[in-house]
């Protein structure tokens, strides 16, 4: 490439970097002579070159390899630093055992080994400890408070239930249906020996609530059968039948009625007082008392389908049948605390928790069950 006024900068840079051949340098020199105005520019570029001679490394001796570092010393130093392989260590140890000069050198080198002074300690370690910020302790406080509230509620509920379980209540109750539906799970099963049954009614009309524990041996359990006449209050009698006897315990004041009760359903799911109906149930009728929030007499005889008085429709789910109860004012006063089975409570976790608490407390407090007919582990409340 020929140098000209359009490409001379590249040639000047190569010239300053000493990257041009002798012939090319000569060409650049001739171009500069022909173009004196460009000579200043070349001189400026040459001034930017740093002269290396200005920097001198002082004390080079530390770079020199020291003469006299013999192979013996090298091996002994590595041996002292524990940097030899197992095989090399054995070689050095064998040399030390046989070579007097090596042993003398080893003694001297061992003296250059430092030992830490364990008495030198960092006294102020407390200043080094750290603690992470932002720990949430409020949550723990809330947990404790919530747990205390739940425990308090459970105790209060248990005490209230225990008090009310000592009062006599009517046998029948109303089976509350959420949204008009029955709940098979509310079937009450009374097992001999497990006498804690309480019947409750919806709203403030419930006298007691039958809460029992259900077992898987319902079919083999004793049945408790009671006859309850209309208008009478349910009493917590001792009508508990052993499984083997399978006898029917009746209220002495009442006469069994062959006819199944026709439950009055006009006050289903109503909180105000309801009319109580007495239902006479025989064992062969397979009527059973349904426990739960609102105990009811259920007619399981398929031939006698219960009729919803309110709506006039036949209740197909025979396991849940609402029966109205007449409640006295005294019962209302005593049982208002048990009216936790309102619609609001049923739909909340608190209501479910309270129901469970009641059952547990009744079980443990040995609350006697009400009068009812026991069949296959179910207790049929007889009004």
């Amino acid at each position: 490439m020929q140098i000209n006024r359009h490409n001379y900068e590249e040639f000047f840079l190569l010239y300053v970097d000493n990257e041009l051949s002798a012939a090319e340098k000569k060409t650049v020199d001739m171009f500069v002579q022909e173009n004196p105005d460009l000579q200043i520019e070349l001189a400026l570029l040459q001034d930017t070159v740093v002269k290396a001679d200005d920097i001198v490394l002082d004390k080079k001796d530390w770079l020199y390899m020291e003469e006299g570092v013999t192979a013996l010393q090298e091996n002994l130093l590595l041996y002292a630093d524990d940097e030899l392989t197992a095989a090399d260590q054995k070689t050095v140890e064998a040399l030390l055992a046989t070579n007097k000069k090596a042993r003398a050198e080893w003694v001297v080198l061992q003296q250059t080994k430092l030992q830490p002074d364990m008495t030198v300690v960092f006294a102020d370690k407390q200043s080094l400890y750290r603690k992470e910020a932002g720990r949430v302790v409020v949550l723990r406080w809330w947990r404790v408070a919530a747990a205390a509230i739940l425990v308090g509620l459970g105790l209060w509920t248990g005490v209230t239930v225990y008090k009310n379980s000592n009062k006599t209540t009517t046998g029948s109750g109303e089976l509350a249906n959420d949204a008009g539906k029955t709940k098979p799970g509310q079937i009450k099963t009374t097992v001999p020996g497990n006498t804690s049954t309480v019947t409750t009614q919806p709203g403030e009309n419930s006298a007691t609530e039958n809460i029992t524990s259900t077992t898987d041996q319902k079919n083999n359990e004793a049945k408790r059968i009671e006859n309850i006449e209309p208008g009478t209050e349910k009493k917590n009698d001792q009508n508990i039948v052993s499984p083997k006897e399978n006898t029917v315990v009746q209220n002495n004041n009442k006469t069994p009625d062959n006819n199944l009760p026709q439950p009055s359903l006009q006050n289903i799911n109503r909180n105000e007082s309801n009319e109580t109906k007495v239902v006479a149930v025989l064992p062969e009728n397979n009527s059973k008392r349904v426990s739960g929030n609102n105990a009811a007499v259920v007619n399981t005889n398929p031939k006698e389908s219960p009729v919803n008085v309110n709506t006039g429709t036949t209740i197909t789910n025979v396991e849940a049948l609402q029966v109205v109860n007449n409640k006295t004012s005294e019962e209302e006063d005593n049982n208002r605390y048990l009216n936790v089975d309102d619609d609001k409570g049923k739909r909340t976790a608190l209501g479910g928790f309270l129901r469970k608490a009641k059952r547990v407390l009744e079980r443990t407090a040995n609350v006697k069950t009400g009068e009812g007919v026991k069949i296959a582990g179910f207790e049929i409340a007889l009004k």
Partner: protein
Amino acid sequence: MTEREYNECVNLYADNVYRFILKNLRHNEDAKDVVQGAFEKLWVNRDKVENGRSKSYLFTIAYNNMIDHIRKNKRTVLSDDFSENAKGATAPKHDAKRILNEALNKLNEKQRSLVLLKDYEGYSYEEIGQITGLNESQVKVYLHRARLQLREYIVSPENVI
């Protein structure tokens, strides 16, 4: 690294780091500052440091801080030449530990650090290289040179043990 692991590192390694720095700086308060700076940095970077590498991390930070401190303050002019100090010793000549400490103080900060890391903490050449930023060969050369210099000082006629 958790908070608990960090505080455990304080219990395990604070004395070792302090001993190493104090032997280098020979100044109590400066050594404490360096140690605190190293642990402070470990706390800040605790999420990035594994618990198993905390000791080497501490020594690395402490060593770098120490070097910066020395260069900043330039408290001592160190020399590799023992000839000017080999004469006129007034202390008892047969105090091996004292003589060794004198010899150690005559090394430059890098050589002294290498000797201390090797003898006090038992680190390998590779580990020392990671702490000091040298490669293994450099560590080996510097350490051997320092060891031989200590040897020469010990066996010098004025300090014959």
